[in-house]
């Protein structure tokens, strides 16, 4: 009523004149523009720093083609086949044991880092620091160190995967503890339960789906990462990659690369099937199970999981309660069993526990993995980590500084290139926007193949074709990240609601206009925040490329370890931690600006 009155009394002509024809420069718009300009400027600087043009892939085509010819057809000699299978089995058990160690260490750390469980801010801060540190240091870097301390073989790989997993699992576990519903916990507390009882019944029982999903998903990631650990001597299929690369046997190199790709995809499908069977809709990582790939950002996984759970709960609570008969009579207790019946859920969980137990037993009998030594090595971990702490700033040389800058340049340049390609490509890989089903399926399939190829394996291949140096590394990283980015972007696009699009289409808009005006405005904030995550991933990946000679700080890392210069290695690791941490602070800030 009052609104119409206002309009009626306003002077239409004066009103018209006072409305600007351009969008006003609000604080938000200025900030967003600065972020965009800053990113593009950084990327251009990065591309120049690594002396690369956007068309490097085309320029290097003759050499690439030459290598492809030397590689074709892929081939694995008969006498190597049983060994390759053995290495794959090793890789699986490395992933399993690494995840096991990671989860066991992450549960207490995650609880200590959770606001809901730990009241002491110092303990919480320290736990968060440990988790952040574990996340920032790539497993390959840890493996590099552990191979020197515990010798060549899977033990070093398992420990590296285990420690690095803390970063992922600990973060998700503490978030799970932070996101529980507080009501049920109050309910438990109000019965007079002790603190331990309250934690187990009120908190832990709510965390279980997240813990199962995270652990199963981590096995999948650890298998992918574990396939590279052999490149620094840490056991698993990477040993075969290193062997063929060293002997310049390119046909075999391609052969084993294809084996890795197939195995990684198989693991992905297995882990996904297990999560879907056990958790159904509440699997935070497998939302789009039907498309046969993974969907992941830390925040996305978390919010997704909890939104879905809450939605399910709200659904249950608001279900019409009609079937209740008017007066409630006491029911009989005669037929109620005292032990839990074998419901589907119980069967599934028991099957999972049985599978974990079988894997644990099998890893004892596996010839290449010595569990006794693994346990004693675990005890040596603290002293090893202590040796890495630099006692002075001698590691801070101009060489290190320039390599660190190069690493950042590589990360920025690769992210920029990957995103340039991924943004258009992701519109083809999103089922709700793709021109037709076949384009959608073909794009998704290619992306699955690219994603399944670890960046470091790409780097090994690219080094063989294009030679050593940061250009090669950047290119390998860009291609690897491209598959991953396309997937993330496509998933974000598929989240777009159809209502606003119907609005655009009903004005007579074309398909392209619909995509630009109906879809893009809905999804761009998600794309920006995924882009930040991609930069974070790409930067951490760029720190290890130097291990195979593809530029960045990785070369100094492996060099310092070769000469057993623990303090220099430790110093570099510290620098990586600081850089990754700084980027996290910046992304959090940007994320706050766009929401």
């Amino acid at each position, binding site marked *: 009523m009052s609104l119409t009155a206002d309009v009626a009394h306003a002077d239409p002509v004066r009103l018209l004149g006072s409305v600007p024809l351009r969008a006003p420069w609000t604080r938000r718009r200025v900030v967003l523009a600065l972020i965009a300009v800053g990113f593009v400027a950084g990327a251009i600087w990065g591309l120049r720093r690594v002396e690369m043009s956007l068309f490097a892939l085309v320029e290097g085509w003759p050499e690439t083609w030459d290598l492809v010819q030397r590689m074709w057809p892929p081939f694995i000699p008969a006498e190597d086949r049983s060994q390759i299978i053995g290495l794959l089995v090793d890789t699986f058990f490395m992933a399993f044991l690494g995840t096991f160690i990671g989860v066991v260490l992450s549960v207490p750390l995650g609880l200590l880092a959770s606001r809901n469980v730990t009241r002491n801010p110092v303990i919480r801060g320290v736990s968060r620091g440990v988790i952040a540190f574990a996340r920032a240091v790539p497993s390959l870097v840890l493996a590099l160190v552990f191979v020197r301390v515990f010798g060549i073989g899977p033990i070093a790989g398992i420990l590296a995967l285990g420690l690095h997993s803390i970063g992922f699992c600990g973060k998700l576990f503490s978030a799970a503890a932070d996101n529980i519903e507080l*009501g*049920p*916990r*109050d*309910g*438990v*507390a*109000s*019965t*007079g*339960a*002790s603190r*331990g*009882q309250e*934690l*187990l*019944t*009120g908190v*832990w*029982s*709510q965390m*279980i*789906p997240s813990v199962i999903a995270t652990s199963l998903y981590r096995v999948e990631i650890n298998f992918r990462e574990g396939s590279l650990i052999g490149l620094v001597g840490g056991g698993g299929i990477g040993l075969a990659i290193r062997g063929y690369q060293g002997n310049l046997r390119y046909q075999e190199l391609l052969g084993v690369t294809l084996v890795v790709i197939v195995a990684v995809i198989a693991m992905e499908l297995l882990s996904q099937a297990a999560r879907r069977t056990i958790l159904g809709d509440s699997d935070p990582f497998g939302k789009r199970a039907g498309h046969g790939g993974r969907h992941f950002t830390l925040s996305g996984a978390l919010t997704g999981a909890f939104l879905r759970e809450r939605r*399910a*709960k709200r659904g*249950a*609570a*608001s*279900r*019409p*309660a009609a*079937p*209740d008969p*008017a*007066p*409630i*009579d*006491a*029911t*009989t*207790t005669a*037929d*109620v*069993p*005292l*032990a*839990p*019946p074998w*419901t589907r*859920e119980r069967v599934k969980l028991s099957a999972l526990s049985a599978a974990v137990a079988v894997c644990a037993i099998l890893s004892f009998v596996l010839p290449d993995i010595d569990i006794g030594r693994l346990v004693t090595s675990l005890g040596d971990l603290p002293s090893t980590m202590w040796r890495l702490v630099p006692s002075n700033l001698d590691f801070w040389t101009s060489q290190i500084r320039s390599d660190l800058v190069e690493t950042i340049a590589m990360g920025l340049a690769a992210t920029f290139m990957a995103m340039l390609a991924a943004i258009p490509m992701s519109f083809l890989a999103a089922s709700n926007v793709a021109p037709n089903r076949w384009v959608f399926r073909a794009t998704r399939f290619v992306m699955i193949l690219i994603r399944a190829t670890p960046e470091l394996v790409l780097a090994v291949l690219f080094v063989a074709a294009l030679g050593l140096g940061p250009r090669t590394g950047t290119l390998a990283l860009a291609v690897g990240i491209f598959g991953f980015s396309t997937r993330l972007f496509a998933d974000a696009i598929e989240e777009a609601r159809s209502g606003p699009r119907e609005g655009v289409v009903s004005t007579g808009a074309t398909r392209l206009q619909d995509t630009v005006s109906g879809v893009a405005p809905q999804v761009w904030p998600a794309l920006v925040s995924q882009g930040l995550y991609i930069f974070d991933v790409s930067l951490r990946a760029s720190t290890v490329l130097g291990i195979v000679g593809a530029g960045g700080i990785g070369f100094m890392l492996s060099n310092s370890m070769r000469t057993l210069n623990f303090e220099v290695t430790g110093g570099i690791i510290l620098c990586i931690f600081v850089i990754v941490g700084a980027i996290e602070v910046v992304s959090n800030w940007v994320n706050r600006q766009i929401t």
Partner: protein
Amino acid sequence: MTQNARPDVVRVRNLRKEFDDGKVVALDDVSFDVPEGQLLVIIGLSGSGKSTLLRHLNGLHEPTSGSVEVLGTDVVAATGKELRNLRRDVGFVFQQFNIVGRLSCIENVLTGALGTLRGPRFGARMYPKQLRRQAIEQLARVGLADRAWQRTDTLSGGQQQRVAIARTLMQRPRIVLADEPVASLDPEISGQVMDVLFRCCVEDNITVLCSLHQVDLAIDWAHRLVGLRDGKVVLDSPVDGSIDHARIMEVYQRLDPTGAKLAEYAVDQQPARIPA
């Protein structure tokens, strides 16, 4: 005010609670006693301080000033073990049920026995058979024994609240505090749930302090009504047979003299009546 010779189990004196450094006064000089076995209903509009008051009685909130004595224990001074012992004797029924949805009904009911056990428990089989039998009996009293092993979040809202009531009964409490136990349920189910709650408590001779915002629902059951407005007690009267519509309107008047909030509330209760 009551002629009952039974001893008082709750004594509240000059209770005051401020939030945000005194910017909000949730309770202002509240005093009352509750004799054993009484069914007391606290009424008031949203924000009148009902929940805050109840949460003081089992130590979920600490008062700014004043004293709270429950079953002979000084709740304000009690800490750790003392407070847990008190909570074992004081059951709490929440508006949002506060059951663990992922667990089966029987596991949620068994939670009520945690205070009598040492150490954490996980899964029904970690509780003694005797307790499991008792839990099933409590579920039977609220009419849900056949759902014992079903996940609680698959039940309807009214059923979930009955599981929560069974959990509270499992504690064998001497007092039950119920904070708007039916506010998230529709009116018909509300009546059923209140019926179950009060029937069981009368059977077990449990003292009940229940907050409600529907005066008419309160009058069916209560021995006594206490009305809160803006954190102050504005009504404290026994409920006898003489309750009629006029009396209910008078109670409303005391809770909401201007009628502004009541009108708002009435609109909330009867949506979708748009005149043509």
